[in-house]
């Protein structure tokens, strides 16, 4: 009699455990499936670790902006225009064909310069660089000699959106 009772209790206990396990598997123990994400291609742009922006010296940046803008209406004008600049070739055509040869740009002042974001990249020669997206507000003046009106100064205040490529800090 005792053996039957023991067997019955054991069977009940087993059934309870099995029920509990099946219920638990339905509710509690879900599988964690990885969310598939594409892997970054080797050598491509990568996000910098963390969110901190690498330092870009303002005075060097201002000097570089001045140097870049001074190529305006020179044979090197195309070297500072990004490939994504809207209607780039038309602008260059109008500069080559329509601008007076003596028209030059004077940088009256570089105002606020802000770095909006950065990404790490690598040049073809293997050097690691940081490409910073910068916005600079620059006060400029176009100067040229007009055959009828004489010396002309055409001033303008513009916001320049720039890609600035600088050498990345040395890896430690």
């Amino acid at each position, binding site marked *: 009699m005792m053996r039957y009772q023991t067997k019955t209790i054991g069977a009940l206990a087993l059934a309870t455990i099995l029920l509990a396990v099946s219920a638990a598997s339905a509710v509690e123990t879900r599988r964690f499936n990885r969310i598939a994400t594409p892997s970054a291609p080797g050598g491509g742009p990568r996000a910098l670790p963390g969110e*901190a*922006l690498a*330092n*870009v010296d303002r*005075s*060097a*940046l*201002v*000097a570089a902006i*001045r*140097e*870049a*803008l*001074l190529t305006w*209406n020179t044979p090197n004008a195309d070297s500072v*225009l*990004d490939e*994504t*600049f*809207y*209607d780039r070739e*038309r*602008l260059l055509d*109008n500069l080559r064909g*329509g*601008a007076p040869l003596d*028209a*030059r740009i*004077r*940088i*009256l*002042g570089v*105002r*606020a*310069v*802000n770095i909006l974001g950065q990404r790490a990249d690598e*040049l073809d020669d293997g050097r690691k*660089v940081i490409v910073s997206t910068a916005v600079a*507000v620059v006060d*400029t003046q*176009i*100067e040229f000699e007009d055959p009828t009106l004489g*010396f*002309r*100064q*055409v*001033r*303008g205040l*513009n*916001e*320049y*959106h*720039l*890609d*600035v*490529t*600088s*050498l*990345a*800090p040395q890896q430690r």
Partner: protein
Amino acid sequence: MMNIRIPLCAAVAALAAAHLSLSVAAQSDFVVETEGTIKVDPADAAKTIDPAEPGDAVANPPPGASGRILSIRIKRVINRAGNNPYFVADPVENADGQLIGDNDAGGAGLNGCLGSIAFAESATGPNGTFFAGVDADPNTLDCRLRNDGQGPAIIFQIDTAFPPVNQVEAFSDVLVGTFQLVPNAQVNFFPGQQQTLTVRAVTGREFEIDVIVDQAGAQTFTLRVTGIRQTA
């Protein structure tokens, strides 16, 4: 238990505050204060251009040094006032110091009309009448193409039902009265023919537009603007 929780909370709060202050410090390095407007001395204008200005004489870091700027590329120029040296249509002297027709004036500028749009059949007019139009702001010359029968600058109308069949008739909307063609007369042409039209706004702004109408079917027409430039 309470004795342990309070120091833990305090420590977490302190760590969060320290992290926040570090983040702010890191960001603030890149927000440069405005230098202020530099007044132009007329005598100064005659000087030769010298890129070296006081305060900006600090050179790039030496070759190989970290932070050295290797290149700089202009991606976009947004005009705030006056001349935009990188204004595509006229980089030297756009608008005598007054901002008009600028493609970066917050609107599309004249360049907003570069492209194409399909003619749409008139919803109210006789069957077989198709419209496309050029809509421009007479002050800023912000421009866009539309095909709802409107087009203050130029309306292009094609009648496929009555002769001359498929002739394109271009005219300004006299009801709106902000633009008129120069000379002030309707221009007729047929699909496939390149046309250059001159339009003048009541503000005195004037632009030329190169258009061509493509026909792909009996009632399928596309207006294509291949060029547009401000002339006054």
